[in-house]
């Protein structure tokens, strides 16, 4: 492989990793607050559509992005309602959310299949983009990729350096203690789910506004599930989420290149790669978690609903 090709591959990995990164960060925020959301796949699908449609109608990519985030928030609001108010099982509610969200995106999106939208264009960062090797890999992308550079830092800061983040983590580790300390764990959890939904929504918006620039069905393509798996890989830490997202972005980019190069490996086998890698990554993370402390880094009250007293 020539150096140019390798650089192009890395650049493509950064791009393909960005939507996964947003979704993983979103799920981290939600799970840190104690709510497991298996609906990410549905959230990504629906927000990709919302972003596309708003951008298509208004011509503004930024409004589209906002719509994607809000669609994610709205759909996750449903999850929050079912799990927090009606104490529904978080796993089942998440699955229902995926069915509903993916279905809704396909249903509403049918009239738009194949239509293109402007979305976000590529902007080379002055000076930085001229750095050899790193420049083309990191600094000749669309604005959302750059937003993706800031997002992990912002999420880390929120979770570890603010009192809101402390409250979120308390709601995820031990809601009763949080309540005793005068916090409102239900409200904190709701915030975690909704903010997480917004971040996942940005990931979905990325797919239609910056990745494909057109609407097709099945745009989410399992990325939501990859994100759920990456949260475990990342030990619920935003920094490690970046590594995971890059890894998957790399595999997806590699697989696309290989397909385009006219290899005689059947495409069904190539398409298996990211899914097989997800399982491998989970195995690897479980092994590492065990050798570290024996306990997983998962929030203690993850997936456990807060029951009313009495």
């Amino acid at each position, binding site marked *: 492989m020539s150096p140019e090709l390798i650089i192009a591959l890395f650049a493509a990995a950064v791009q393909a990793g960005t939507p996964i990164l947003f979704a993983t960060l979103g799920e981290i925020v939600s799970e840190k607050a104690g709510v497991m959301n*298996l609906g990410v796949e*549905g959230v990504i699908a629906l927000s990709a559509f919302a972003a596309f449609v708003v951008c298509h109608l208004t011509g503004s990519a930024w409004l589209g992005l906002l719509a994607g985030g809000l669609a994610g928030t709205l759909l996750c609001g*449903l999850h929050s*309602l*079912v799990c927090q*108010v*009606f*104490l*529904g*099982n978080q*796993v*089942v*509610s998440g*699955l*229902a*959310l*995926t*069915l*509903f*969200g*993916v*279905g*809704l*995106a*396909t*249903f*509403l999106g*049918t009239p738009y299949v194949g239509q293109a939208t402007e979305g976000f264009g590529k902007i080379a960062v002055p000076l930085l983009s001229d750095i050899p090797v790193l420049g083309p890999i990191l600094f000749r992308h669309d604005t959302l990729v750059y937003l993706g550079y800031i997002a992990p830092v912002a999420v880390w800061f929120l979770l570890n350096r603010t009192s809101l983040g402390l409250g979120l983590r308390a709601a995820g580790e031990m809601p009763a203690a949080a309540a005793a300390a005068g916090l409102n764990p239900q409200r904190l959890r709701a915030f975690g789910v909704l903010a997480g939904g917004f971040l996942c929504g940005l990931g979905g918006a990325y797919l239609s506004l910056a990745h494909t620039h057109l609407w097709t*069905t099945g745009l989410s393509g*399992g990325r939501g*599930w990859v994100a*759920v*798996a990456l949260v*475990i890989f990342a030990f619920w830490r935003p920094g490690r989420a970046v590594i995971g997202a890059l890894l998957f972005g790399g595999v997806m980019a590699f697989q696309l290149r290989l397909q385009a190069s006219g290899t005689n490996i*059947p495409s*069904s*086998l190539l*398409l*298996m790669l990211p*899914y*097989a890698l*997800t*399982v491998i990554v*989970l*195995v690897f993370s*479980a*092994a590492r*978690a*065990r050798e570290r402390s024996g306990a*997983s880094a998962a929030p203690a009250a993850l997936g456990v609903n807060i029951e*009313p*007293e*009495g």
Partner: protein
Amino acid sequence: MNLVIRKREESLGWGVLVVYLGALALAFCVCALLLKMSGKPGFGGLAILFRGAFGQTYALLDGLVKAIPIFLCALGVALSFRMQVWNIGAEGQFALGAVGATWAALTFPGLPGVALMPLMLLCAMLAGAAWGAIPAALRLRLGVSEVISSLMLNYIGILLLEYLVFGVWKDPASFGFPMTAEFASGGQIARILPGVLGKLHWGLLACPVAGVAYWVLLSRTRLGFEIAAAGEGERVARYAQLPYGFLVFFVMGLGGALSGLAGSIETSATLGRLQPTIMVGYGYTAIVVAWLARLRPWAIAFTAYLLAAFRVGGEVMQLELQVPAAFGPIMEGAILLCVLAGQFFLTYSVSLRPSPKAARPAPPANDANDAAKGARS
């Protein structure tokens, strides 16, 4: 006024029906709204769906045909859900079952039906069980969450099926269509009474057999009690010295076998060959069914038929109103969300009480917490 939420001491009785009907009604309202939003008649569209599902004899029979794989997969899913093991890999196990049966049918085409058919079903169940055992092994040996691994195996299983059908198993006489050669007649499940009962086939027999076996297993055997007890959680199970690892393997393997069986029946009865078009999401519908039925076999049978009928009606609506096929999953998702929320009222009762502050003088500061608790309980 304060909302008072209390755990119910006795079950709701007929109120359960009211809760379920209410949740269904809410889900249908959402669906009607969506139809309306996309420029179709809202409740009129649902009327078409219901007429399509229950209006004619052949529609009822078609629903029964579709209910067969859904019922079998749902039993498999319910088995592991009993144990709080979240096997959501029925779709992939279904695919592997279809692959296993096809392998037998294509490898031994010369066998007579009495030998070939059991061999196909056996291969299907083994393949499905193996696919289900992978997440179980990953969880037990390595601590990998079965939710994600079983879901990933869905994608991989479907792609494996496609790989085979597009590649080594492709029928040279299919003009490039992705399908295998037609199975020998001994490898096809016949229709019961083609003139009278439409597409209904002998695969239906698998349902009562599996259903009764499921009921006997869970309510009449030691193993069944152990599964139910292990549903209290891994720590409780290990404390009670239950063979937790074996039980996880057992429910995932048997669940996989049931979904595999569904896959083989679907391949051999409705198509008589393997085609990627058999993957229509029965494995996901099965999860919805298992949860709506609260994991009980009779309710699973009824719910499987209900959702199968909605699928039939949905197809009619698709044709008449040009509604995208995605309407099906939306409906299933909406129903599951509404019922999930509604099930709250089965465990808790909600009533309005005057707020304690208005009714009583303010309690002393020290007792404030206890007083608040007392008012709520």
